[in-house]
């Protein structure tokens, strides 16, 4: 909700904290492009929540081992675990609990369809459809959809105080948000009905019959598709739609519910970006999109920031080595100044449409890679002090 507060007031008020963001969220979705520290940030937020006494879950769909590495959890890579949907508890000395889950897209999609299919034979038929085998996890948006479907299930279960979702490193982070709508569009009655013939015994339409009953435009389009892909593909497509027709209403309903919770007031988005100009530009675009689409975009986290040390800049070195060190600092500080302009521009852009509670963090470059729970604990403390 946008409050009627000037940009200057928003930027000059006492900065909202990451702890405040954690407390008012049930779900925190970390978005951003690749290589910005999204997974590490998600893990550190989970640790912070556990230290605040909450029961937190961090989940990722990313098949790369980033979350496992960040948490120091080999178990997440266990092939046996990857066939289950059970989270793993992270060993952490904290008043709360931290759990982690690596989502298995194929398994979630199968379980989802199975749950929606009242008839087990129907699910068996769908799972054997050659298109389903190819499409279920490679369907454009299916990985994102399965992440959101699991998120919905966990949100409704109320088992966790906070769920932190590390989104896939999509080429465009916006893909994640448009996935439900894209898949929902496919399961509209107005589309699947073209593949059905209510007069035939099994309800299926045959390829020659399509031409007789659909509109001319669709007939031409389907014939074009046949030219491009061959008749066998169309037949598999017909079988696929016939199979899912019985469950498409539930699929649409579930997708609609996913869309609803993405806009719920306790579901917040955090945009994670890096300090490089390319990343900052991409972040600006993503910030605009989040705000224009009405999501509760409540945090900007700029990672790998250079730490300004005026005391180092003013130092009077007594050795040649000390002089070289101060020279290096000056060069890095000048480079940082240039980038800071880009960060300020994004802040101003976001502040125009942000709530008073918007969190902005500038997280300093750490001296070493953040790996394991102890490093994450230190990083989560840095978050508490990293207000821009």
């Amino acid at each position, binding site marked *: 909700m946008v409050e009627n507060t000037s940009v200057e007031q928003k930027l000059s008020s006492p900065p909202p904290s990451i702890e405040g963001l954690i407390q008012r969220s049930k779900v925190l979705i970390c978005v951003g492009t690749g290589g910005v520290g999204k997974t590490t940030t998600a893990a550190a937020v989970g640790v912070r929540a556990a230290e605040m006494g909450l029961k937190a879950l961090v989940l990722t769909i990313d098949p790369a081992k980033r979350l496992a590495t960040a948490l120091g959890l080999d178990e997440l890579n266990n092939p046996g675990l990857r066939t289950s949907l059970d989270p793993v508890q992270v060993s952490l000395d904290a008043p709360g609990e931290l759990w982690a889950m690596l989502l298995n897209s194929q398994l979630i999609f199968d379980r989802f369809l199975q749950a929606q299919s009242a008839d087990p034979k129907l699910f068996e038929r769908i799972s054997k459809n050659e298109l389903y085998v190819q499409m279920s996890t490679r369907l454009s948006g299916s990985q994102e959809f399965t992440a959101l479907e699991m998120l919905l299930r966990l949100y409704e279960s109320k088992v966790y105080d906070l769920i932190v979702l590390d989104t896939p490193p999509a080429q465009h982070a916006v893909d994640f948000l448009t996935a439900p709508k894209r898949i929902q569009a496919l399961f509209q009655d107005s589309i699947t009905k073209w593949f059905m013939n209510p007069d035939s015994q099994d309800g299926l339409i045959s390829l020659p019959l399509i031409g007789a009953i659909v509109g001319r435009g669709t007939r031409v389009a389907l014939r074009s598709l046949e030219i491009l892909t061959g008749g066998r593909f169309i037949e598999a497509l017909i079988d696929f739609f016939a199979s899912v027709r019985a469950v498409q209403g539930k699929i649409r309903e579930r997708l609609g519910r996913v869309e609803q919770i993405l806009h719920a007031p306790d579901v917040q988005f955090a945009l994670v970006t890096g300090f490089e100009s390319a990343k900052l530009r991409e972040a600006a675009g993503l910030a605009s999109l989040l705000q224009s689409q009405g999501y509760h975009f409540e945090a900007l986290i700029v990672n790998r920031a250079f730490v300004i040390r005026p005391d180092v800049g003013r130092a009077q070195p007594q050795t040649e080595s000390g002089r070289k*060190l101060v020279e290096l600092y000056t060069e890095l500080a000048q480079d940082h100044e240039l980038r800071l302009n880009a960060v300020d521009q994004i802040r101003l852009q976001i502040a125009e449409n942000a709530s008073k509670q918007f969190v902005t963090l500038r997280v300093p470059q750490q001296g070493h890679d953040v790996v394991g729970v102890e490093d994450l604990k230190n990083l989560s403390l840095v978050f508490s002090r990293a207000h821009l």
Partner: protein
Amino acid sequence: MLLVEIGESSFAVDHLELSGPFRTEGASRGAQAKGAHQPFPTGLGFDLALWSGESCLREYVLHLLKLEKLYKVFFENKVMRALVNVAPGLNDVAILGKITSGIRRVGPPLHYDHIIVDCPSTGHAAALFRAPQGLAQAIQVGPMAHHSEQMVRLLKDPKTSALVTVCLPEEMPVTESVEFIRDMHGEFGFEHFAVMNRVLQIPLASEDFDSIRAGETDPALIEWSEQISEFQTAQTKAMNDFKAALQVFEPAVDSIVLPRYLSLSGRQLVESIAQLLLRDSFDGSEEAFNG
């Protein structure tokens, strides 16, 4: 020489401050560089094109269906639009199809000696390269299946395709890059090459840090010296781990190291790297930066 960017927005347009036959929207000039599907000269010795899945698919379908009227019906039909929007890997295949169209002689001519593609990050890049195989399995017959098989053959031919993996001197990027190269090595016949990028040049050796500890009295300077020393140690370890991992492959993967340039514009950065690569004395090692 053609540089290809993939997607809906251009990084190069902003980074290199280019002007060209495209219109832009939004605060970033590259954000909506529409109309950059056709390659245009950059004035830097190469042409640039921005290829999205949609623009490539439209061009491809028009090429196959021949009739513009038929193509319009196809793309304006909501059934087709819904299918196209979710079809697995279809956009990726369309993009790869466009990239390889010149050598396959499919579609509008593409007369370049070399095409350099700025790929997405490793996870998405792997999906891009695997897409034609997946589509060929799903469709199996028809022109799209045939063209997909052609693309797979080209990707597996080291005389045609080379892969340059760019990494940062940090533990996680090194791990992911090595895994990516290993996966691609197994699945495709790319000629492989690797770049360790943005290596911060720290003109201090361990003796310098000892000298600072022993000879400086300013606590801020000493503290910062320790931080830089720690950073340098981590950076050096990442570089060494990367190089060692690349030697394990058969054949071993060659690599070079590029410095992190400070306070340069995008154009200056590209020119600086180009000059470094052209230098006779540059052998790809960190020591050669100041040669």
